[in-house]
């Protein structure tokens, strides 16, 4: 399907928002403004945006511990996200979730998930709802190369085939599960082959190429919406930073790190659309300026915001003891 200029602008806005947001998270983490852990999505922008590009708010995604990019790709508000990540009042989860648990039901975002392999079974259930209610909507489980080794993922893949639900398993293979390489920890030659063995179509796609991801996702989406069942995508990409912000990455050579930065989804997108004369460089620059302003505003709001009211500690549970 040919993308319009508006589509391309939307794709670039989403991808660059992730880039700018995550680079800012890195800075704010170093500045002490973000409690806990932060796992950033730098280098994977095309995967999340390509998968979510043709989804609506009524389609669902389940995410991972590295979930900021998925939130942005699904349309979550960056100010609400920054407030949440900083543990502030007005955050998407009222400051009770944090970086690893951002959710936004109104956007069909079923939560970042700090348990590796946590989302695939849940996505099967969200897909089951769509099937039983005949909505034509789908549920996507984002997971990584690490989660592809979890038994919960195997169970979810099999169950999705058995129940024939509109689930799409998007495996982002960024080369590392925490601090161990996928080349060591994934016993199968490919994650797509592994998913295929459960009885669903599966393909390996360059996860740094927005266009390749969006096209492959289109095939999976068409199957799912037509009631033809689940599919899987293995999206190969590079993790620019370590497992978490601050990971010194002693286990990666400087050559490898440089090569990872060389597989840049943002640069690739810019090159493709400008070389094909689909968008001008100036238009892309203007998008970047706007996005940087938006992220700056989000950070300012979040830094200035008060923490959650202490009286919310025991709300959102059914009983106090």
């Amino acid at each position, binding site marked *: 399907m040919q993308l319009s200029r508006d589509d391309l602008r939307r794709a670039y806005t989403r991808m660059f928002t992730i880039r700018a947001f995550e680079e800012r998270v890195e800075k704010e983490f170093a500045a002490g403004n973000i409690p806990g852990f932060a796992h950033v999505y730098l280098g994977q922008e095309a995967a999340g945006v390509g998968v979510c590009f043709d989804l609506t708010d009524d389609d669902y995604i389940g995410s991972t511990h590295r979930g900021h990019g998925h939130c942005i790709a699904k349309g979550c508000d960056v100010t609400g996200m920054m407030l949440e990540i900083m543990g502030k009042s007005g955050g998407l989860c*009222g400051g009770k979730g944090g970086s690893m648990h951002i959710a936004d039901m109104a956007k069909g975002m079923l939560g970042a998930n700090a348990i590796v392999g946590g989302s695939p079974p*849940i996505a099967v259930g969200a897909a089951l709802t769509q099937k039983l209610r005949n909505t034509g909507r789908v549920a996507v489980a984002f997971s990584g190369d690490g989660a592809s080794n979890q038994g919960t993922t195997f169970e979810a893949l099999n169950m999705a085939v058995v129940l024939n639900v509109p689930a799409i398993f998007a495996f982002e293979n960024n080369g590392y599960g925490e601090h161990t390489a996928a080349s060591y920890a994934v016993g199968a030659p490919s994650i797509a082959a592994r998913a295929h063995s459960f009885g669903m179509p599966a393909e390996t796609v360059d996860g740094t190429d927005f266009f390749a991801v969006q096209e492959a996702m289109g095939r999976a989406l068409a199957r799912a919406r037509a009631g033809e069942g689940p599919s899987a995508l293995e999206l190969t990409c590079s993790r620019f930073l370590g497992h978490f912000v601050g990971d010194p990455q002693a286990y990666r050579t400087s050559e490898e790190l440089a090569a990872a930065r060389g597989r840049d989804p943002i640069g690739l997108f810019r090159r493709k659309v400008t070389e094909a004369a689909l968008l001008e460089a100036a238009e892309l620059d203007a998008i970047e300026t706007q996005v940087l302003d938006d992220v700056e505003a989000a950070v300012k709001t979040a830094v200035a915001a008060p923490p959650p009211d202490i009286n919310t500690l025991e709300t959102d549970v*059914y009983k106090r003891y």
Partner: protein
Amino acid sequence: MSKKSYRQAINEALRQEMRRDASVIVLGEDVAGGQGASGEPGLVGGVFGVTGGLFKEFGPSRVLDTPISESAIIGAAAGAAVTGMRPVAEIMFVDFVGVCFDQIYNQAAKFRYMFGGHATTPLVIRSMIGAGFRAGAQHSQTLHPLFTMVPGLKVVMPSNAYDAKGLLIQAIRDDDPVIFLESKVLYDTEMEVPDEAYRVPFGEARIARDGNDITFVGFGAMVPRMMAVAETLAKDGIGAEVIDPRTTSPLDCDTILESVEKTGRLVIVDESPPRCSLAADVASMVADRGFGSLKAPIKSVTCPHTPVPFAPNLEDEYIPNPRRIEAAARAALRYG
């Protein structure tokens, strides 16, 4: 009103709620049974027949047989619940929660709080509990303390057919995840149960028997055992009050405290190893909030701190039995 077994009461609750609300679905291993086999599907209806007939009435889109994949069962139920369905998932024996506990305590139980109150997860997990079936260490546990310590979960332990029906209907209509623990030794116990749908609220204890001299507190299959001992003590003119809290979470602390205020003596009977049991939990609550009422040390009757044994004589001694309950009561009565 007619005489129904605990099993029939549960089945009727499921059937009536499924008729009332199209978003109620049942899923689990062999809840229909026979899918893909040479014969007709749906004739199994659960390993103990509790979901019998549901497949025939509601069909494969409402009564879903799953692979033997507990994580996927609970995860799918949680995902369906948070997107608008009211799934009743079955974990056949509660012992199997070990392979899916992440989906229970890290996922379903946490969505509401962790997402700032923006998610509801109206999920029921039915499972069978308890020793007495000579089923050995991995098919005989109760495990209610594991669930009770998880914020966000409600935990139900019906002790009779009337409560089983009303509590399950409440569980299905409840917007929080509910663990519904069925005592397999009670499945064939019968009593008068209304034919129409009704709810038994959570967190409201039932005073199964009035008495002024000693308070018994226990859950599920321990209730009939406490009642038997209460009858024995009555022959000696001792009035035992028997409290069935019905739910371990939320726990009706007030009814327990009011009874202890009256009797001054407390025996807690819990089919569980003693450490971190409901016996320990209730004892600590009463020691904290009802200390001034106590005339005697709180006595607990629990299982030993061992896995459930297989040999019938060992298993019979493992479960709190009337002899041990009576001995604990008489020990408490000797004080003051």
